[in-house]
């Protein structure tokens, strides 16, 4: 397994080499880096060679493997993020990082499936965050390495070209499946909900969760033609009868509360496609999997990646590992 955790000095040397780099780490570390072909986002949680870690001293590095090349870096705000798919290179893919709770994060989360050229080319990436002790005092950021700027309200996208004879493909690994409970239908799309329809009966969702003793560490799951897609619970406000999510729920899409899972690492390893570690150019996994499954100190096969506040594989995902593989044509 390649080493992914590097000191600032070591990352400086990689940047000077000129290759495209995808970085994750604490803000003060990323601020010290020279300009170059890199993008980065703030986060101190990682799955590394030694297992799940919280690291304030080193930077996680995805070096572009397999002859992939950085074709440039673009930035998008909430006003122009709808161009993100249309701008992707015809011979490659994009890696996007956006700051959690920023306007561009919200615009992408709600609107992506309706953007021009949605899913026409692979778009993978993650939502940057902060150490959980710093929630409310520090803001998540992304970095455009070509200028060295830290950005709080923009997404950065690295355009990556794939050499002839190779092809990039996105994948997700989600251990959660729809449970046996009834379908839950939301009356409007968004990051929160008060009223839902369960078995055709309209009711308050917060009360429904309480009455049925639902474990909100398990996500809501929707069936996307065979791919289970999660929406994770952020909070249940019993006083106001409102439930908040880390990704939007969509009206017209039936959701079910996820079935319980046993041991995360066992489930994860059993679902991991063979040789994935050798074919992966980039991956990320969710902070909720890290927290709820106590992944600190544990290994998830040979997968190394940043632990993030949201994953992107075409659209925003929760409690999922997203990855891009490079295969020969």
């Amino acid at each position: 397994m390649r080493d992914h955790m590097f000191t600032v000095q070591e990352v400086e040397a990689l940047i000077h080499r000129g290759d495209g780099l995808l970085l994750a780490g604490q803000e003060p570390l990323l601020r010290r880096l020279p300009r170059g072909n890199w993008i980065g986002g703030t986060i101190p949680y990682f799955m590394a060679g030694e297992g799940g870690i919280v690291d304030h001293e080193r930077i996680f590095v995805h070096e572009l493997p397999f002859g992939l090349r950085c074709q440039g870096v673009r930035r998008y705000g909430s006003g122009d993020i709808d161009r993100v798919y249309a701008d992707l290179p015809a011979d490659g893919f994009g890696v996007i990082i956006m700051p959690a709770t920023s306007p561009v994060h919200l615009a992408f989360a709600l609107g992506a499936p309706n953007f021009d050229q949605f899913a026409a080319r692979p778009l993978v990436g993650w939502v940057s965050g902060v150490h959980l002790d710093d929630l409310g005092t520090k803001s998540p950021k992304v970095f455009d390495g070509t200028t060295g700027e830290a950005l709080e309200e923009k997404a950065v996208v690295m355009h990556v070209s794939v050499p002839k004879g190779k092809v990039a493909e996105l994948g997700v690994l989600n251990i959660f499946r729809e449970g046996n409970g009834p379908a839950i239908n939301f009356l409007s799309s968004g990051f929160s909900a008060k009223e839902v329809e369960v078995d055709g009966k309209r009711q308050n969702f917060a009360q429904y969760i309480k009455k049925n003793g639902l474990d909100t560490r398990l996500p809501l799951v929707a069936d996307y033609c065979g791919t289970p897609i999660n929406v994770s619970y952020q909070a249940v406000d019993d006083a106001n009868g409102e439930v908040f999510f880390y990704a939007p729920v969509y009206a017209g899409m039936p959701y079910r509360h996820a079935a319980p899972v046993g041991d995360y690492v066992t489930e994860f390893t059993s679902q991991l496609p063979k040789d994935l570690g050798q074919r992966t150019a980039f991956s990320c996994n969710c902070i909720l999997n890290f927290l709820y499954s106590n992944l600190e100190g544990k290994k998830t096969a040979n997968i190394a990646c940043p632990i993030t506040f949201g994953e992107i594989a075409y659209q925003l995902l929760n409690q999922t590992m997203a990855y891009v593989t490079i295969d020969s044509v």
Partner: protein
Amino acid sequence: MQVPPATHPSWSDLLTGKKAQQPAFMAARMFIVRCRMELTKNKFNADEVRKSAAQLRDLYVKNADCPSVKQDLATLLS
């Protein structure tokens, strides 16, 4: 491998759910779900289905080298 024309019934069958088999290509899965949410609103209007079928085909053309696209072309769309 040839990508069938937009008029091939498999495209609209995937969109409407008439074809029960699921595509292997993840982009298609996500695109189909997005289309179904819209198409349900306009009761699967024939013009809208045709338009979405052309867009779905375009996804396959643009990603024709992907292993999952090849798999779908050989099984779902032959």
